[in-house]
């Protein structure tokens, strides 16, 4: 038999349904990979002109640097186009006991010695003496775990950028991610996808999907009658989940019994003065029935209240948000978003993959939404099925991997609520109740009373939240661990050297790095070099 054109069964056309960050990132990654490998994949993206993007995901992980590099967007363009700022971690305020000075950092740098020496027991060992005197697990001089094992929280406190203007794009002296304007990000991605990567942009409302005998989606039909055929369909239609939910009815697995938040109120707060400092970390401040995020962009702050409708009313939540923002927010509108925390039971069904909100959403704590999109795309693009016959096994791998990731993210987010000492409201009391704690998390918490979180505690080679993150949160929230590193050992000498080195780097960087806004101003004016 002679073949003409694309051989039967070959994945030659991908249709992305839905714009926004998820859709355009998907289109960019697929098209960039196709250009890089010369695979001549046709990528189309169809989005409605009538459905606004949810656009809440304004915090990224450091992985975004690699994602942007892969799709060929330079960092200068990204920072300028998206009002982006550099994020070095998160500061959790009021999560441990709600007292006046209750705050800790979860920096993006891993602890010093990662892979060689675990500093965790030694920090706890140093703290013991102080426990008796002060009742606190920090050292008497106030050195927190994050401060002892790394220098990044000092940079955050000082309001310094993680890099200088002479650093190459996507490189820095400390690990960093971004805060960004999600609406502008989608526009940048769209322009890049269409202008540079050859993605076909279709404006239209998907009204139905036609399926083949094997259940695959053959094409989607738009309201104006146009038909978009494809070999693979990526559902980036957001919470409406047009394909994974609407066509395949893949069950949605709610996790509201674990993570209680199901509402968000978002507000955009302009700076009082154009030279106001820009925080280089997310501030997450605990509230009576949730928490408030506060992130700094170039021209404004993004502030929002995530809460549980079971424990507070919308009006009370808005009042709490307005009290947090103060007079600067008096005349500002608040946008309300309702969501059901959870995820699909499967993310890849037949020839349809769900990426973004269509796959699920938990809550914005620890900024996992964009990261999950990137991780999904890594899995999809790196292992894009070449033929339909290869799709079933790749889909099975994908579903297993992401079922695991979602469970682990749920557990990590729940950790923040479980180990709190707050008992001042029903929200916090119920969060700590055993019935709401996943079995796997409880098992690990029991283990971590006696052992430091380590790579062996996690089965998956590429955990999205691994042991360094657990160490920062557990020690930041003064989790009651009883293991201690012994001084005057061979390993302790290494520990002391690492801590001393950390101090030297901190001193050097505190004198060397520019203020965050100054760095961003320089980037906007002069740009970053590629090398």
């Amino acid at each position, binding site marked *: 038999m002679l073949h003409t054109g694309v051989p039967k069964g070959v994945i030659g056309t991908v249709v992305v349904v839905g714009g926004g960050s998820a859709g355009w990132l998907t289109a960019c990654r697929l098209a960039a990979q196709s250009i890089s490998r010369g695979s001549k994949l046709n990528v189309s993206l169809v989005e409605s002109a009538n459905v606004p993007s949810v656009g809440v995901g304004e915090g990224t992980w450091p992985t975004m640097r690699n994602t942007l590099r892969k799709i060929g967007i330079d960092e200068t363009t990204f920072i300028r186009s998206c009002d982006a700022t550099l994020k070095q971690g998160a500061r959790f305020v009021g999560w441990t006991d709600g007292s006046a000075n209750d705050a800790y950092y979860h920096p993006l740098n891993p602890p010093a010695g990662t892979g060689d020496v675990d500093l965790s027991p030694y920090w706890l060992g140093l703290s013991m003496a102080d426990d008796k005197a002060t009742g606190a697990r920090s050292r008497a001089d106030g050195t927190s775990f994050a401060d002892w094992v790394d220098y990044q929280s000092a940079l955050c406190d000082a309001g310094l950028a993680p890099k200088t203007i002479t650093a190459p794009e996507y490189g820095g002296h400390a690990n960093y991610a971004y805060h960004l304007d999600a609406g502008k990000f989608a526009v940048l991605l769209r322009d890049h996808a269409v202008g540079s990567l050859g993605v076909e942009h279709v404006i239209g409302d998907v009204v139905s999907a036609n399926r083949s005998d094997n259940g695959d989606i053959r094409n989607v039909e738009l309201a104006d009658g146009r038909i978009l055929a494809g070999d693979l369909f990526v559902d980036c239609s957001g919470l409406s989940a047009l394909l994974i939910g609407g066509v395949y009815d893949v069950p949605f697995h709610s996790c509201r019994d674990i993570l209680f938040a199901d509402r968000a109120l978002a507000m955009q707060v302009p700076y009082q003065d154009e030279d106001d400092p820009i925080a280089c970390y997310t501030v997450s401040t605990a509230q009576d029935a949730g928490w408030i995020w506060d992130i700094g962009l170039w021209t404004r702050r993004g502030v929002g209240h995530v809460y549980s409708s079971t424990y507070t009313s919308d009006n009370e939540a808005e009042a709490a948000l307005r009290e947090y923002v103060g007079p600067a927010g008096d005349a500002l509108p608040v946008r309300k978003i309702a969501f059901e925390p959870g995820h699909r039971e499967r993310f890849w069904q037949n020839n349809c993959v769900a990426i973004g909100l269509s796959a699920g959403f938990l809550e914005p704590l620890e900024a996992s939404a964009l990261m999950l999109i990137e991780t999904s795309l890594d899995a999809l693009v790196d292992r894009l099925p070449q033929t339909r016959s290869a799709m079933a096994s790749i889909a099975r791998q994908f579903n297993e991997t992401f079922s695991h990731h979602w469970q682990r993210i749920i557990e990590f987010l729940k950790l923040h609520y479980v180990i709190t000492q707050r008992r001042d409201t029903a929200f916090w009391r119920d969060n700590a109740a055993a019935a709401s704690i996943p079995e796997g998390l409880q098992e690990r918490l029991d283990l971590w009373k006696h052992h430091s979180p380590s790579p062996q505690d996690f089965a998956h080679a590429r955990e999205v939240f691994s042991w360094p993150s657990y160490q920062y949160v557990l020690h930041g929230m003064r989790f009651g661990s009883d293991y201690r590193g012994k001084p005057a050992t061979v390993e302790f000498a290494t520990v002391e050297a690492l801590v001393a080195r950390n101090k030297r780097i901190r001193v050097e960087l505190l004198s060397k790095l520019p203020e965050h806004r100054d760095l961003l101003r*320089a980037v906007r004016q*002069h*740009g970053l*070099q*590629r*090398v």
Partner: protein
Amino acid sequence: MSTVRALRRADHATLCFDRTVVGAEQRVVQIGLSELVFAAADMPLCLAKDASTGRFNLVALVGLVGPVNLFVHDRRFHATYCPRALQLSAFRLDQNGVAGLAIVDDDPAIGTSGDPLFLDAEPSPLLTDVATALKGLVADIGAARDLVDGYAADNLIRPLNLVLQGTDSREHVIDGLYTIGTEALMRLPNDEVVRLHRSGALGWAGVLTASLAQVERLCQLHNAAGQQQLRIKRLSCDDGLGA
């Protein structure tokens, strides 16, 4: 730390400028485009980032370890060509100063020997010459920066890996320097190669990369000074996969 002050008759009337004197405490000097071929006769030419803008400047390497200008002996510059920025290091352009100049107080070229800055309490013709030369240098450095911006736009710039080793086996990493990636040049599309060639940028790129052979000369000068002997352990551009 040097103090730069606007040139004033009241403060500087008795000072002289000795144009044969060059400061010895400098490792890198910025050069203009017109100096490129001359400087390459003596010293390695590289690119280095401006600390306040991050943009690349064209620089000549005149030292290796520490702020020591290896071409300077007894306050004189011993080479075929002396970069103009070194010749004029005692002065800056300053609209508030006499002749539009400022003076670097502790520059070794400024003192009691040489040509007087003021004659009979009036600015000497020397000052006009210096101001003209400085303006020319600024424009020439601007031209060099434009050239280098073009290299950056073509993604041709790569970090320079320069590692020296002393007789005690200690390594000295000279970082913060960049050069033109030869592999990156090879990968340029034909049209861009022709464009670079016709603009002169391709030829200058060749001069830049060839000048790196002068690192060996710097080592010789360093070793001849009787200090710990150095040898080149690694001298290459980080051209791997590019940036």
